[in-house]
């Protein structure tokens, strides 16, 4: 007798459709795959949901941002200021963001109990604990798979990286490279989107016409799902090249560029807005580096200054454009930082009581959920973890996070089935 259970690894989905018929129906968790029903897809397509993640690389200090503890043994010199929501205070390093608080929702009781950079970010981006023998797709790949229309010409999963040349990420696990991130190295357009210099547009069109023609005799003999996917990738490439400007932030008016700030993060935030406006499902922006073992306060003063203005501008722009209802904003790190201040005036890795900020689509506005104790050394109320947050992101954009992906007949839970979303945070 089989049990209806699941530990959440990809191998659980080994049931292939073809032999499901012969087994107890209970063996399939959650029924058919997410979009087996075209209705569901159509429903989402009506107002395509989008997600933007700000990855505060290195570990943002919750005490210098969303959960200050002024006047306590752990608070350091950071003071708290009022926000646009009476009763919610944030660190004084976020004056502009404070004025946008009515759009945001703070989650202040995060306990991931993980102090390793690699493991921490893995948990936060995949919603699962890292285990040696299994790998899970990152939030961007999951959102791209779940929210992007099948015929979209633009990639659904885009990461704006602080540097690097771009390319495809290895972050989609069993969802396959189709949903892996396309990196925009330092905000530049994707790799290989410029035609070779010597090739005119007409010549490119001609050679592609010939390519299509040359394929006909072969495809008449044998056409498969693989050959279809292959030929379609070229159509996609042509479409993407036509829309290349979407990735070019310099096409934004000069005034907009000034407004966001000319530093990297400012450009990246403006680019993120541009991409989301163009219908790209998922954008991740990174801000580096918050790993402040030394001089925590000075570093946060500098970093937060960049972030605060660019982020606040981004949030208010989305609100002004009516995009907040369809765009989920997540500000996360791999972990927070220790309440204890070390003798280099630094704070160390700390995953036991820290904060994540959400905003926009599907979440409460102007709210703070969860609470740490007086000096921030433990969660007093509303404790949540990475898996619950992951469920919450999915639920916020209208997905049923207890559903499964259907990967070639293998059923894979979208999120860790041992947990569920944070109901109090959802709108």
């Amino acid at each position, binding site marked *: 007798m089989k049990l209806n259970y699941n530990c959440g690894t990809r191998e659980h989905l080994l049931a292939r459709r073809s032999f499901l018929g012969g087994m107890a129906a209970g063996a399939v968790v959650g029924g058919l795959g997410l979009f087996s029903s075209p209705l569901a897809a159509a429903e989402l397509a009506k107002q395509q949901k989008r997600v933007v993640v700000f990855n505060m690389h290195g570990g943002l200090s919750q005490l210098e941002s969303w959960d200050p503890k002024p006047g306590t043994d752990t608070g350091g010199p950071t003071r708290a200021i009022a926000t646009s929501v009476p009763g919610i205070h944030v660190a004084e390093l976020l004056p502009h963001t404070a004025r946008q608080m009515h759009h945001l929702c703070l989650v202040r009781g995060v306990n991931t109990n993980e102090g390793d950079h690699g493991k921490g970010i893995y948990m936060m981006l995949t919603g699962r604990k890292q285990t040696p023998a299994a790998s899970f797709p990152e939030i961007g790949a999951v959102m791209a798979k779940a929210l992007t229309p099948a015929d979209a010409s633009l990639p659904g999963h885009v990461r704006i990286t602080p540097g690097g040349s771009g390319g*495809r990420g290895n972050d989609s696990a069993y969802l396959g*490279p*189709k949903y892996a991130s396309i990196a925009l190295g330092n905000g530049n357009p994707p790799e290989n989107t410029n035609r070779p210099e010597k090739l005119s547009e007409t010549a490119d069109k*001609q*050679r592609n016409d010939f390519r299509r023609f040359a394929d006909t005799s072969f495809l008449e003999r044998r056409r*498969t799902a693989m050959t279809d996917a292959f030929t379609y990738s070229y159509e996609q490439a042509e479409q*993407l090249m036509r829309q290349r400007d979407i990735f070019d932030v310099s096409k934004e008016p000069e005034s907009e560029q000034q407004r966001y700030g000319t530093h990297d993060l400012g450009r990246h935030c403006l680019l993120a807005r541009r991409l989301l406006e163009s219908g790209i499902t998922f954008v991740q922006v990174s801000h580096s580096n918050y790993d402040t073992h030394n001089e925590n306060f000075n570093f946060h003063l500098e970093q937060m200054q960049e972030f605060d203005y660019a982020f606040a501008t981004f949030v208010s722009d989305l609100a002004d454009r009516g995009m907040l209802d369809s765009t989920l904003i997540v500000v996360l790190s791999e972990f927070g930082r220790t309440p204890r201040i070390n003798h280099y005036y630094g704070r160390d890795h700390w995953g036991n009581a820290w904060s994540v900020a959400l905003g926009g689509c599907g979440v409460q506005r102007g709210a703070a959920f969860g609470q740490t104790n007086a000096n921030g050394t433990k969660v007093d109320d509303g404790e949540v973890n990475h898996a619950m947050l992951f469920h919450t992101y999915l639920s916020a954009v209208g997905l049923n996070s207890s559903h499964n992906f259907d990967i070639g007949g293998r059923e894979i839970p979208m999120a860790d089935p041992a947990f569920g979303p944070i109901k109090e945070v959802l709108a």
Partner: protein
Amino acid sequence: MIGRLRIACWMLRCGAGFAVCLALASHASAQNPLHVRIDQLIESDNRVPAAPVASDAEFLRRVSLDLIGMPPSAEDLRAFLADASPEKRVVAIDRLLASPQFVRHLTTTLDVMLMERRRNQHIKQEDWYPWLYESVKANKPWNQLAREILAADGVDPAMRPAVRFYLDRESEPNLLTRDTGRIFFGVDMQCAQCHNHPLIDDYLQADYFGLYAFFSGGFAFTAPDKQIYYAERASGEVTFASVFEKDSQDATAPKLLGMPELAEPHFYPGDEYSVAPSDTVRPIPKFSRRSTLAELATNGSHRQFNENIANRLWAHLLGRGLVHPLDLHHPANPPSHPELLKLLGEEFARMNFDMRSFLREIALSQTYQRAYDLPAGLIEQSNAAGATLQELQTQLAALKEQAQQSEAACDAAVAEWNAAREALKPVQKELADARAKSAEIHKKFAAAEKAVADAQAQLTAQQAIAASLTETSAKAAETVQKLPQDAELAQAAQVFVKKLEEIKTQIASLEKNVADKQAALQAPTAELNASRAPIDEILARRQPLADVVLAKQQAVVAARQKMLDDRTAATRIGQRVESLTLFTSLAPQQQSLAASQGAIAQRETELAAAAKAIEDYAPVVTEKQAALQLADAELTKANEALQALKAEETRRAKLIETVAQAETQTRAALEQLKDDADLTAAADKLKQKNELLQTDLTEYRKTVTAGETTATAAAQKREAASSDVSAAQTEMTNRTNVRTTAEQAVAAAHAQAAADQQTLDKTISDLAVRWEGQFGTSPLKPLTAEQLAWSVMQVTGVYERYLNISRAELDKNEPLSDEARNDPAQLTAREWKVEQLTYQKLLGSVGAFVRTYGSGEANPPGEFFATVDQALFAGNAGTVNSWVAPATKNVTERMISEADLNAAANDLYLTLLNRLPTAAESAAVVAYLQSRPEEKSACAQELAWALLNTAEFRFNH
């Protein structure tokens, strides 16, 4: 050939005695080469028609891609096509197998299979790959290669690269369990880590932990010199519990799939190591589980191990495994041909795991050489398949019944085994207690032993000093004798003598210390020995019980294997039934299609008739309308005439009235001028005139009446004509309606035919997928990232160019002697070196393809994906665009200098797609080249680019 035919006839006659028949066939063909037996098993088992043999051109492209990882050169292809020898395919296979590129391609395939593109950690790819390459080059048997990897510890420098499999998986036991299971045994048991596999009956938690137990003691040991080894601690049984069942605690010794638990030799506590663990020394247990794993898996008798690699090598050529996915071998996902898989596993072991010979046999088979089209004459054969279907359905019922029986038998065996384990438990407990006691005592003993060793070490150190002092002292005395006057020297000699005396005293003390410590060791030694006696006693009592457990477990293993085989057989026949059901639906679907296509003709005839009826009737309508027009005109004319008559009548009536008035007025005047003659005469004249006029009018009114009659007649005639027209129009409407209905019927018939066509196409496409899985037709195989890179370099001439560069470089730096130039062996060796150097030079270019087309680090290879970044890379990156540029006699350069454009088209297609163009393709190439005559080079490059980016190039077929 005759022999094969005869066997095929047997098969047919055997009918329901299918299994028996197979046994006979395999017996009868025992002497046949493996490739013949492969074909026999596939043919007898498929029960569906197979695709014809691929053309020579298709064959050479396929076998080249599969064996050397790149397509043939145009030159090789031309020679092959021109060769009339019936043996030319065999010759080609042997030529490819002997080439350096074969070793290269197989090495790369094994590298990706074993390491899955993991990044460098403890062992570098630069060390690992050459080791693998040399192994393949020496045609090292697979089992030896696997044994070297599975037993690796990294100690022997020559074998150190082999430890990469463990070390670069972080030595993590769960990861090693999963990957060893997948890669060496073809089972991915990851989900059985926390509980019996939820979806796969046969993947048990006990199996997972049985394999895990081989790795549970393994760890990465860092030696004082920072070198890292994979080391092993002695460890006991592994305990595990299902996360879903409380109190489900169980334990297992190391256990390989399909085998009972390992009966490990017993060691007293403290006696497990030949080198005991410490921070600075790599421990060596007396019994190495991993060596045992390596030995048991690779000794040729482990079925899963043998079948896994046979399946993987099969997939290397056929594009998919008999079991597919390659790491999901279990009864619900049975091999497409279980008997064949079994045969391949056994034969590969019998061939001493010689990969080259094994691949050769597969490549020689007809199964491998099939075309990728569907077989011809499907419909006819579909009709005949009904009988086979029925036969298989009967067989399926029996097999299901049998599987149920063997499941019950397996349950019974498990119950007996569990009972035996229960009986063993009290003795096990006793043993554990005795061992725990002995272990405690061993601690004391070890401390005493260490004290002895320490004392001995101190003594030895002092003795060494004494020895060197004695020597120095003697030398000093000698020197003093030679220089007796030197006081300083004499004094120094004295110092040595004195020191020596002191040391000797210390030695005496240390000697006593050693003796004391040795004496102190006596008691713990005796105690330890005493504690071991009960262990021996319990072991002796345990043995018969353990023997029973082992026997029972062996019975379980056998029963389970039987159950698996029976289930596999049932599932597989079930799949054949599905496949045949689909196949038999083909003929009826084709009939429906024919019927609906026939209906189209019928409906179209009806439509034509309806149209004709309309056409025929049109003149009638016209005629009636003309008559109506005529009647209309006549009526108008009659009415006009009547009106004129009536007007005249009125005028005349008015005149009469005027004359009557004149008479009346004249008579009134007569009243006043009584009897005036003139007036009287006038009045009378007027009266006469009036009467005359009255008479005329009366006469005239007859004319008017006649006019009225005419007009009425005309009106009636028009009325009749009008109703004629209405009737005709109604008739026309009726006929038009008939046509509309007929038109709708035609459209419906077309729709029906299209739907039927779609159903049929879907069935055929589903059948294609199934037959691909049954190897009845050749599967399309996407080129791997590396294959794609080398293939593009091959057809664009880049590869040839770099071979020449490398050859020239070697000839310059290491010129061959005259003798070597005449020695074929040395010349061959030189070509291998040329390939090596070329590989090194082009490796970077391959990397760009691997990043774009390869699955990411630590992802299982083999999943095909086509992404937009690949198309952008192919279209816009410098790589491919620069390779199609004309250079030293490559295809684009040849095309540019070729005056005959048709010849250029032939060259293009033969080089890039390994076939000649069709007439239409040739014409299209010529037209393309002529479209911009002044840019012939650009045109040639664009054409080459286009062909490189076709599905025909992207796939091996």
